[in-house]
């Protein structure tokens, strides 16, 4: 028995050593950066992705991190949003709005066509806006969740290149929404198809720089360059058609195989690697891109209606008791940034409020003392026989959430908290945590188009509001700030209210920011140049070339 076991071990280790040596050779040949080489047309880019997502029905899938990659290169949008959240013209050359921001007029670029030859004119835009706002839920087609549907009154084609869109109340978020990943322009013929045919990607016609060449369901999607493309967003700085001939999105579920394929030169981009592997990949000469997107930072919305967070001092103690630098150095890499507010710092209205929640364990301990929580023999603080205890539910939609929560658990435990962790998968989390009013702290990861969206999550002044802090309408100051944000008609004035609101929410300890979110990680071969990332952190390959 023992000799056999030894023999077995010998064979296994010989095999492993051989494999490591051989794969090492492969990796060596992949390196060799050629930065700043002149763009050259041609080339086939292979993008390895964890999953191709679920359905291809445009309204139901374009928001997904997976399908969004492909939609972004196949379709155009009316407005472009860059990585800093700035809006610029795209298919809409310019736009006007009335004083109370209830009517918007879009002026479209001329000569734009879908790849089926039909013009991208005012009628096509009206058909698109209509389905974004309403969907056809009785036929299985969603509306776009982030479109300001509640106020939508209708869109009409004034002439071939002019569209008028009306809302029943001020809707400053309308123009930014047009740049969002859900708002993709599709041929009216596609929009008219029933759901089961829209689910066939080859039938979904856009006007983007690439067209769908081949789809192997659940395996790969091949895009082909459109030679007559000439209406890319000015902000990207590339005129005319794309350089690349084709882009292949190939599903490879195992993350190490994705990055090893790029190392060995079989692919150019590997999507979503684990943060812990990134430093090693960089040392091998690969490029790592971690663009951020617009939205809320990762953090906890505290429930003010349950103990112990019904006390402002306890909430502030949590804010000051968390060491965010340790989270960044332990769970993430230097590509991640600490939170400065409750918004990602790429949001144009975000202002730096990091002093309001800076790590200060002494201050946190003093706050808990003041609030009457005293440490017992077991290190857990108590007050009137109650333990200073709460449960965290790691957010299953965010990859590193559990590691972050485990670290927060350690940090708060040393202050005298008793933190429990309960981890659920997506369906169970949806049932037990989302919408449950007794959850003490909800972990947020949420992108938004426009800071106006924020009003709908803070209080419960109207139907559908999310009431993150379970305040109802009890906080008059917050009600007022939320209303002013929601009904604003001037962006500059609204930015000042947004600053006030960030300051107020953080000082009240309603929200505990942790880190800025990076949801999309790109590991790239050094031969890839000229990729642009929009405000939603999607890779756009219009101006991309391979300098191999």
């Amino acid at each position, binding site marked *: 028995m023992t000799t*056999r076991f030894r*023999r*077995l071990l010998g*064979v*296994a280790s010989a095999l*492993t050593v*051989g*494999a*490591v040596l*051989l*794969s090492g*050779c*492969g*990796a060596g040949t992949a390196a060799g950066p050629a930065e700043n080489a002149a763009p050259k047309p041609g080339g086939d880019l*292979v993008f390895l992705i964890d999953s191709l997502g*679920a*359905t*291809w*029905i445009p309204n139901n899938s374009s*928001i997904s991190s997976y399908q969004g990659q492909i939609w972004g290169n196949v379709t155009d949008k009316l407005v472009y949003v860059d990585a800093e959240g700035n809006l610029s013209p795209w298919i809409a050359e310019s736009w006007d709005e009335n004083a109370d921001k209830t009517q918007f007029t879009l002026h479209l670029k001329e000569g734009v066509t879908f790849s089926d030859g039909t013009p991208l004119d005012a009628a096509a835009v009206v058909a698109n806006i209509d389905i974004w706002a309403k969907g056809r*839920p*009785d*036929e*299985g087609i*969603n*509306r776009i*969740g*982030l479109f300001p549907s509640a106020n939508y009154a209708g869109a009409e084609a004034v002439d071939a290149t002019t569209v008028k869109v009306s809302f029943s109340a001020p809707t400053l978020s309308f123009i930014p929404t047009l740049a969002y990943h859900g708002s993709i322009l599709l041929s009216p013929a596609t929009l008219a198809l029933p*759901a*089961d045919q*829209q*689910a066939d990607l080859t039938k979904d016609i856009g006007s983007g720089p690439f067209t769908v060449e081949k789809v*192997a*369901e*659940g*395996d*790969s999607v091949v895009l082909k360059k459109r030679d007559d493309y000439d209406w890319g967003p000015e902000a990207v700085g590339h005129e005319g058609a794309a350089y690349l001939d084709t882009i*292949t999105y*190939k*599903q490879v*579920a*195992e993350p190490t*195989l994705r990055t*090893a*394929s790029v190392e*060995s030169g*079989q*692919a150019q981009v590997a999507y979503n690697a684990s943060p812990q592997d990134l430093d090693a990949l960089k040392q091998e000469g690969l490029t790592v891109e971690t663009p951020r997107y617009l939205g809320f930072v990762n953090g906890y919305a505290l429930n003010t209606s349950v103990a112990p967070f019904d006390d402002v001092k306890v909430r502030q103690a949590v804010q000051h008791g968390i060491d965010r630098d340790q989270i960044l150095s332990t769970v993430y890499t230097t590509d991640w940034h600490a939170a400065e507010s409750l918004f990602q710092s790429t949001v144009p209205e975000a202002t730096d409020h990091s002093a309001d929640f800076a790590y200060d364990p002494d201050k946190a301990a003093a706050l808990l003392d003041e609030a009457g929580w005293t440490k017992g023999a077991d290190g857990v603080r108590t007050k009137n026989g109650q333990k200073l205890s709460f449960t965290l539910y790691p957010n299953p*939609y965010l990859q590193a959430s559990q590691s972050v929560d485990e670290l927060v658990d350690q940090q708060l435990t040393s202050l005298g908290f008793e933190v429990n962790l309960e981890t659920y998968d*997506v*369906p*169970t989390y*949806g*049932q037990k945590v*989302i919408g449950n009013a007794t959850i003490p702290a909800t972990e*947020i*990861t*949420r*992108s938004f188009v426009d800071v106006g969206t924020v009003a709908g999550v803070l209080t419960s002044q109207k139907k*559908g509001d999310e009431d993150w802090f379970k305040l109802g309408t009890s906080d008059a100051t917050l009600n007022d700030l939320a209303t002013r944000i929601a009904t604003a008609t001037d962006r500059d004035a609204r930015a000042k209210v947004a600053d006030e609101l960030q300051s107020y929410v953080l000082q009240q300890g309603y929200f505990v920011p942790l880190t800025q979110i990076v949801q999309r990680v790109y590991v790239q071969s050094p031969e890839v140049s000229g990729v642009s990332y929009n405000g939603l952190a999607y890779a756009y390959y219009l101006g991309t070339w391979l300098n191999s």
Partner: protein
Amino acid sequence: MLRTYGRFALRRTGQALVVVLLAYLFTFFVISILPGDPITSTLRNPDNGFTGDDIARIVAYYGLDQPWWVQLGSSLGRFVVGDLGVSLRSNLPVGTLVLDALGSTLSLAGAALLVAIVLAVVIAYGTQFLPPRFGQGALRSLPSLFLSVPNFVIGLLLIHVFAFGLGLFSMIDTETPWGTFFAAVALGIPVSAQLAEVLIASLDHESRQEYVAVARSRGLGQGALFLRHLVKPSALPTVTVLALIVGELLGGALITEAIFGRVGIGTLVEQAVASQDLPVLQAVVSLAAIVFVLVNLIADLAYPLLDPRVSIGSRGRTVAAPAAEEPAPLLREEVSIV
């Protein structure tokens, strides 16, 4: 004789239908007791920004708001007339999805079975005729090595060496002949282990029989002895194991396909389970049940042809029983010796 065969086949078909129906019901109930439904859990992602009303209308479109017996009734009704429905995940027809995946899986499983048989026969032949000094013992321990190394380790090793190292195939297109070959090797190795164990055991048993000694004394060569006298009696237990291996191939395909990035029945099941895609799962589970029952039926029918001592009784049950039980004590005996 023919009549007995006919009655036997009819009874087995009836049993097969019951098995398929039970598998169908079982899948339905397992998925139904899981929390939530696939549509709601997708739409409930807070980043999507849908209200409860939006979600309810989409859920109603798919009929997921109906009580379970209504859903089961309509699902069964469609299944009986051959309509496999539409995938909840992708909205594509389930029939197309399954057919597309089936081709890939069949070529992988077929190639893997070939690899497994060749490997097993080579190993078994070696254990009989290789002199002990030249690694007969090592050959005998190969099957247990093959069984103890997990499928995905073999797969990852093969990919690192032959795809990334030697560039024989690419992860971008793993359905090429080389890609299929290496995936088949990864899947076939553990399967060959089971085959080889049984083959070795029965070869050992047969070679101790007197007729072999007689044949040897008459000066029969090794190859002729193996082919003429040893293979046929050893084939019976091997066929039993072959029938069981179909299940192994289907199960192993899941891991192999995921590692090699192939789209087959395995990946289809994996995605369907992850997204609670009931129509796809039911189609695949029913298909698997049909395949399994069919293969076992074929194996049962093959026994009498391989060994005249196995006769068809008037009751179907007695047909399979002696053949299935016969190799078992041999196996146990040999394992303790190895």
